[in-house]
C-alpha cells in the first residue's frame, strides 16, 4: 500500500506548487516592498512543506535538515529586511 502515500504526496506537491505560483504572482506584482517580503516568507514556508513532502516520497530523511535550515534562514532574512525597511534603507 505504498502507492497510497506515493499518490497522495504527488497530489499534495501539485497543490502546493499551485499555491506557490499564487505567492509568486504576488511577489512579482506586489505594489510595495513589504508585500514582496511577505510573499517571500510564504514561499520559503512552502519550500519547507515541499521538502517534507519530497522526503516522504523518496524516503530521504536528510531533506528534513534542509527544511529546518531553510526555516532558520528565512526567519533571519525576514527580520533583516523588515529592520532595514523600518530604518529607511529602502525607499
Amino acid at each position, binding site marked *: *500500500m*505504498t502507492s*497510497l*502515500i506515493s*499518490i*497522495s*504526496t504527488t*497530489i*499534495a*506537491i501539485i*497543490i*502546493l506548487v*499551485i*499555491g*506557490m*505560483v*499564487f*505567492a509568486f*504572482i*504576488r511577489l512579482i*506584482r506586489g*505594489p*510595495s516592498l*513589504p*508585500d514582496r*517580503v*511577505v*510573499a517571500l*516568507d*510564504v514561499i520559503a*514556508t*512552502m519550500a*519547507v*512543506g515541499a521538502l*517534507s*513532502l519530497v*522526503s*516522504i516520497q523518496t524516503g530521504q*530523511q536528510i531533506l*528534513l*535538515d534542509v*527544511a*529546518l535550515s531553510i*526555516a*532558520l534562514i528565512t*526567519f533571519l532574512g*525576514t*527580520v533583516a*529586511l*523588515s*529592520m532595514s*525597511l*523600518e530604518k*529607511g534603507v529602502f525607499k
Partner: protein
Amino acid sequence: MIFQILVAACAIAGASFMALAGLGILRMPDLFTRMHASTKGASLGVALLLLAVALAFQDISVATKALLTTAFIFLTAPVAAHMIGRAAYAKNIPLWKNSVIDEARGKIETAVPQSSQTENETRPELSDAPPDSSQARRGDND
C-alpha cells in the same frame, strides 16, 4: 494501513492549507490582510505536512526533527509578521479602503508625523463614510 491513510490525509490537508495561504496572499486587498492569510494558513499547513512526515517515517529522530521545525515555525512566524507589519505601518503602507478600525494609529511612529497631518490625509482609506459597495472591493491596492 491506518498510518498510510493518516499520512495521505495530513499531506493533502496541509498542502491545501498552504495553497489557500497562497490564494489569500494573492487575492486579499492590502498588506495587513495578506499577512493575516499567509501567517496562519502557512503555519498550520506546514505543521500538518511535518506531522505527515513524522507519521510516515515512524522514527524517533525524524519525529524530533519534525517537531523541532514545527515549533520553530510556530515561534518565528508571528515575530516575523509583527516586524513586517510594524515596519509597513511606519512606512505609511495604505490600509484597505473599507477598514473600520486602526488601533495602531498614534501608537506607532509613521514616516509622516501624525501631528502634522490632517485627518485622513495619508490614510484616506479610513474615512467615516460607509463603504461604497458599488466600487470594486478587490484588487484596489495592486
